[in-house]
């Protein structure tokens, strides 16, 4: 991967290893603890279908180099949206303004990082021609419309990304990665009488487009979008109040992302503003709960062979049998806290600074059959699909929004419910996990996590869970 990234990012600009060392040397003059260069080239292509026609397509290319100098916990940052030596040297000179002036340093790139690639370097933008992509969208549209006469609107979109990155740092790191990312989404509107409801489904990951183009892949999304819209046509008002909640497997793991994950990112701990601050080693969940952040899964949307600081990604255990065991770190915060980086330093692009971010966050399976978990609830709700969530990491309060849920009465599933927000408190929600299912699932590959205005692709997952008490924001 390093060779591929070098070939696509540095070779065209005539930049060699000596040039990288020269730029790093300029960057770490004076009192700079760490300097790094982040080269990136990203191609995006998108196609969308609406009203039965593929009516728009878009293409973009972005490339550049981000240059960062860290002095203590202060950061100087510069970027150039061209990759060439003069631009790189100018950016390096500007980024080091964070440090007081001092003598020139030298910096050798002595630690080439070679890790097994978690995904193929295929370029989904080029590997499949435009005509085939357009045909795919039309085929999906026709199939989706044929599923039910109540479907009045169908939109389908396909996006393909291909990205090469290369990191050179004054700590010796030299690492590269080539990352494909694809995604397909199907959205429908169903109408019956004067009711109108929507349904959506989609997925993708870091794999070849042929994986999504196979009918058995996309038909699942189309079937699911239609099923959701039709279920919603029957939905009744959701209850309001504090009650037992059973969460379905897979995407409902957004609970873990919001309630736990953000609060375990190193920057919030370094700054002392996380509701989980100072609780390392303490019990923050029932003994049924083991939660990991794992960037090493093959071909997943949140996976990374190396993070955006050149650190190999890892499987980090955040909570083990209920005890808080790990945080997610980038280099700046790991250094400030006297720990090792964990492979979670990520950035939206060369024009953004790295931050500690999640990759694929999920809970390991327990022993209960999902049916047994539902049967154990006298009065509560079963939530299987969510729109997304949000957390206040300081107060610990988080929400996530159910888009498909059912009432449970006396251990039996009842009517589908209209969408409702669920709200809880991060530090205690996992202390209410009474049962963990044996059915771990990961989401289909649609998550985008936002932090400080930067969006990065992530994954979530979990088995079926029973939580004995969350506030459900219905109207009844």
């Amino acid at each position, binding site marked *: 991967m390093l060779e591929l990234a070098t070939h696509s990012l540095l070779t065209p600009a005539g930049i060699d290893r000596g040039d990288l060392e020269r730029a790093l040397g300029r960057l770490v003059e004076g009192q700079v603890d760490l300097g790094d260069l982040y080269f990136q080239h990203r191609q995006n292509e998108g196609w969308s279908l609406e009203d039965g026609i593929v009516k*728009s397509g878009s293409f973009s290319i972005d490339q550049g180099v981000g240059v960062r100098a860290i002095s203590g916990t202060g950061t100087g940052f510069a970027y150039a*949206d061209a990759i060439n030596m003069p631009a790189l040297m100018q950016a390096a000179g500007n980024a080091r303004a964070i440090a007081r002036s001092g003598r020139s340093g030298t910096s050798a790139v002595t630690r080439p990082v070679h890790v097994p690639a978690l995904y193929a370097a295929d370029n989904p933008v080029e590997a499949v021609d435009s005509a085939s992509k*357009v045909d795919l969208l039309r085929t999906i549209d026709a199939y989706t419309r044929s599923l039910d006469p109540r479907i009045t609107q169908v939109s389908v979109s396909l996006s393909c990304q291909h990205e090469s990155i290369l990191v050179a740092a004054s700590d010796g790191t030299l690492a590269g990665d080539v990352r494909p990312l694809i995604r397909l989404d199907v959205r429908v509107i169903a109408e019956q009488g004067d009711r109108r409801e929507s349904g959506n489904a989609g997925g993708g990951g870091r794999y070849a487009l042929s994986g999504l183009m196979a009918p058995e892949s996309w038909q699942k999304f189309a079937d699911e979008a239609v099923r959701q819209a039709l279920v919603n046509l029957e939905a009744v008002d959701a209850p309001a109040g504090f009650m037992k909640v059973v969460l379905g497997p897979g995407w409902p793991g957004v609970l873990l992302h919001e309630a736990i994950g953000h609060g375990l990112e190193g920057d919030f701990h370094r700054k*002392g503003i996380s509701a989980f601050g100072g609780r390392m080693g303490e019990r923050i969940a029932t003994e049924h709960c083991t939660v990991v952040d794992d960037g090493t899964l093959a071909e997943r949307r949140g996976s990374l062979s190396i993070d955006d600081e050149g650190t190999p990604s890892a499987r980090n255990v955040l909570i083990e049998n209920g005890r808080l065991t790990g945080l997610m770190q980038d280099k700046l915060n790991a250094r400030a806290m006297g720990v090792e980086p964990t492979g979670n330093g990520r950035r939206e692009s060369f024009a953004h600074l790295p931050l500690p971010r999640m990759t694929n966050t999920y809970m390991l399976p327990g022993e209960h059959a999902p049916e047994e978990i539902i049967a154990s609830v006298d009065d509560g709700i079963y939530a299987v699909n969510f729109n997304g969530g949000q957390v206040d990491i300081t*107060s*610990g309060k988080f929400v996530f*929004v159910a888009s498909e849920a059912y009432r449970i009465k006396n251990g039996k599933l009842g009517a589908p419910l209209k969408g409702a927000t669920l709200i*809880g408190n991060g530090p205690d929600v996992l202390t209410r996990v009474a049962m963990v299912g044996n059915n771990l699932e990961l989401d289909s590959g649609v998550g985008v996590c936002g932090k400080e205005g930067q969006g990065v692709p992530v994954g979530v997952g979990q088995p079926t869970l029973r939580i004995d008490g969350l506030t459900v*924001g219905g109207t009844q």
Partner: protein
Amino acid sequence: MSQTMTRNSESGAPLLQNPRDERAMLEDAAAQVLTRARAGGADAAEVGLSSSHGRNVTVRLGEVDVLEDARDRGVSVTVYINRASGSASTGDLSAESLARAVDQALAIARHTQPDPAGGLAPAELMASRIEDFDQWHPHELDMSALIERAKRIEQAGMAADARVENSEGASVSADAAIGVYANSHGFVGSGRSTRFDQSCVLVARDGSGMQRDWDWDDKGRFEMLADPESTGRKAAERAVRRLGARSAPSGRSAVLFDNNVALGLIRHLVGAVSGGNLYRRSSFLVDAVGTQLFPEWVRIDEDPHLPGAARSSSFDSEGVATRQQPLIAAGVLKRYVLGSYSARKLGLETTANAGGVRNLIFSPGAKSFDELIADMGRGLVVTEVMGQGVNLVTGDYSRGASGFWVEEGRIAYPVEEITIAGNLRDMFAGLVAAGTDLETRRNVQVPSLLLDGMTIAGQQE
């Protein structure tokens, strides 16, 4: 053509030092793009370009946390061949890169399908006069001035209350931007603006736990920014007043949205009457023009020509001349919010809202925020909502919320970890009163709004 974010603390030169040259460069690039598009077989083409330069500093606990001096350029082109469209964008404005973007857009347009509603906005609607709305106020500010200001903001906040014991930092930024839009009708329009922003996020703690809140200001003219100390102190007050928050009584009660949260309700209205959601039938307000959505006293107007406002412009993002026009009068929806594409899909005319509304203003009421609290008697003041629980297809609304519980016309205690739920149609119809406190710093300007009733859920019975 390289753009760097400089971090040079000596440099206090105005942002985008030669705005005339920069605009001329963007206009020249626009012309290149349109020429190549026509030569390459496009029947029509349009292009948007922007160039911006900003400086931003963040100070945390008295130390510089991040220094930024960002320069960005971008171009986005759309071409039409027999009503089929293709788009491409890039951050590199060199001639080769522009040519490549046009060629990519053309290649895509050869694969998309003809769309009867596609194409440019009608030529006769293009803005013929481009006015200056007093948005360009360059101010010489070097990094050290920004750092000093950020330190003053944070210090004032940290000193305001002993319970404020931590900070996420104070930031100050200065930005300048130039935008150009041109299309193959021969329309070329440009605009430029400066923005100055300051904000502070503070953390308060007591025996009950930690709470975080913030304050901010944003102006087109540096001299008009709020006192740095007042921003720090308000952030402190807002964080401290949340300490000890608990749940609220569950059930139905009156709700007062403060002017920051109330603007969200009006944004949902705008979303539901926007062309894209209407022609996709993804709105609970399909076919709602002419219907009474609000009580009769409600009036909402759009004024795209408001002097000094960030979004003011003589033309929309398709070149169509903008105009002052009501959205809601006497509580009745007067029109949708349309660009030319959605207008054609709906068989209507564009409302010059390609790119969204510009300065949408909810006419304020006669009572102060405190008077509204007194009028409410018992209920919930909402100062923050969380999550994405708004379904514009159905109007169903369910959000996480925090704020204050009101008893006997006065604030009794802070609340958190509750939900508020209702349906937007009922919430709009159930407006009881608007405050005098119009939030004028936003594109959608709304005062605090009192609603007759929503369902509140918390852990308290």
